[in-house]
């Protein structure tokens, strides 16, 4: 289960809406071992595409170094789907390289109602998990 503060959910949805129709992506870091997302980090989608996303490699190195220095890990890795449901695509599954992260998908295909779901992706196997939103 992913337990996450409402302001962090709102921040992911706002980022996804702002970049629509391109996909938005980012990370929420949290203390190592806590499984608790705390520090919201918007990442640039180097692809600037409605069907693909990729963290900019230089920005990713900088952010991963910061997390290392703070004893943080990427608790949540999020991105948006702008025309399809919030379910990992085949490409999402083949790239998923952080077995301990919660992969959060936000769909902005409906202009009013967003869809937000969370998954573990380990060795190509997708497992959906409940999302518990706590008031911040």
């Amino acid at each position, binding site marked *: 289960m992913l337990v996450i503060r409402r302001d962090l959910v709102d921040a992911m949805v706002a980022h996804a809406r702002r970049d629509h129709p391109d996909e938005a*992506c980012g*990370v929420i870091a949290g203390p190592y071992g806590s499984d608790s997302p705390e520090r919201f980090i918007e*990442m640039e989608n180097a*692809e600037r595409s409605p*069907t*693909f*996303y*990729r*963290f900019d*490699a*230089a920005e*990713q*190195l900088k952010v*991963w170094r910061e997390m290392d220095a703070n004893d943080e890990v990427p608790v949540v*890795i999020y*991105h948006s789907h702008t025309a399809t449901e919030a379910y*990992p*695509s*085949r*490409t*999402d*599954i*083949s*790239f*998923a*390289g*952080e*077995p*301990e992260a919660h992969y959060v998908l936000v769909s902005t295909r409906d202009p009013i109602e967003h869809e937000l779901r969370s998954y573990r992706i380990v060795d190509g196997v997708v497992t959906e998990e409940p999302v518990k939103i706590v008031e911040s």
Partner: protein
Amino acid sequence: MAVTVSIPTILRTHTGGEKSVSAAGTTLAEVIDDLENNHGGLKARLVKEGTLHRFVNVYVNDEDVRFSGGLAAEVKDGDNVTILPAVAGG
């Protein structure tokens, strides 16, 4: 010619859990071959059909090697090689 290689979580099964290992070589390709000798299975996770796998980012001293020769990128004694999983999808 020894370099330090940072290993991401997903590949630490090949290094007995070590976050960072030492390897030798004058190019990234040689470093990866040396890694493979000591940590079998790593090369297949990094290299596909003679080029770096699109699922990983490799940096030599913070420089993305895609812009500095890929597997032919030169490394010097004391350099730091960092491997990160590429974060991407559709």
